[in-house]
């Protein structure tokens, strides 16, 4: 699996994400600075978490207009995989590769803790190493992860099985108490129509080895390694 991790000013999870790809695939990803206009020859482009451009204007808004983004769009159009995590998810929605938007958490608080996620679609390039309905642990750290989409978009996402992950409790139930940010339908991660772009707020890259307290996030990278 050949991968690239994009780096913007203000991003801070790029090393974690690079380490996850390196650990699972045995190959270090290319680190690609935002001013580049071409991507190296890769299977997966990953956009990490952090606070690109200090979250000015809207989270991810400025990064989404960077020079490298046109190359990301072409990569996705060719069927290449794109993974956006946390700020990366916000950037991918701002680019328009995924529908909807991430808004201020309903609690108005920055939430940094471990949550449970339910794998709602395990038949995707990003989730095939998990079992359908499997409940996994995953860290979150964000102030604006409250997923919103209009009713029509939401109906399409649900109808087409494009909700990959949902926030849930230990039993896998999507309760209000288990929803850390107010996301509509407890949505934690979604796919595009073609299934080659995934955006999610939680950080699977931070739970890939025993040192981090668990390996529940590893499955996402192993899934990608199966297809790329």
């Amino acid at each position, binding site marked *: 699996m050949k991968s690239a991790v994009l780096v913007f000013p203000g991003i801070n999870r790029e090393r974690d994400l690079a380490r996850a790809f390196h650990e699972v695939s045995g190959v270090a990803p290319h680190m690609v600075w935002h001013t580049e206009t071409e991507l190296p020859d890769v299977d997966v482009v990953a956009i990490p978490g952090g606070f690109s451009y200090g979250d000015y*204007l*809207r989270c991810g*808004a400025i990064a989404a*207009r960077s020079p490298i983004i046109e190359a990301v769009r072409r990569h996705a159009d060719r069927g290449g995989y794109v993974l956006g995590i946390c700020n990366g998810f916000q950037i991918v*929605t*701002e680019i328009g590769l995924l*529908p*909807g*938007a991430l*808004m*201020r*958490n*309903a*609690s*108005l608080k920055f939430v940094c803790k471990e949550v449970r996620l339910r794998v709602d679609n395990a038949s995707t390039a990003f989730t095939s190493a998990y079992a359908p309905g499997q409940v996994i642990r995953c860290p979150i750290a964000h102030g604006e992860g*409250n997923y*919103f*989409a*209009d009713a029509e978009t939401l109906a399409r996402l649900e109808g087409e099985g494009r909700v990959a992950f949902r926030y849930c409790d230990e039993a896998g139930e999507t309760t209000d108490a288990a929803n850390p940010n*107010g996301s509509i339908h407890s949505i934690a991660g979604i796919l595009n129509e073609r299934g080659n772009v995934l955006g999610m707020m939680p950080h699977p890259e931070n739970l890939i080895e025993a040192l981090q307290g668990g390996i529940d996030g590893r499955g996402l990278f192993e899934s990608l390694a199966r297809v790329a």
Partner: protein
Amino acid sequence: MKARVTVTLKNGVLDPQGKAIQGALKSLGFAGVDDVRQGKLIELELSGHDRVQAEADLKDMCEKLLANTVIENYRIELI
């Protein structure tokens, strides 16, 4: 030429910041505030003098960057 762009959340989009402001106003004793919506005000200084062109450019700026039309509306004023 100066321009002012006002960006507000669309109706039906939950505004937790507006709700927090409403709660704070209530706790300060301001009665009768039925709803609060928070938005953004962006002021621009434009070098051209063609108002029609400026309005077209500003609309383009709003669609491409200043507003996220999934959740926000915008209003343009030339002053």
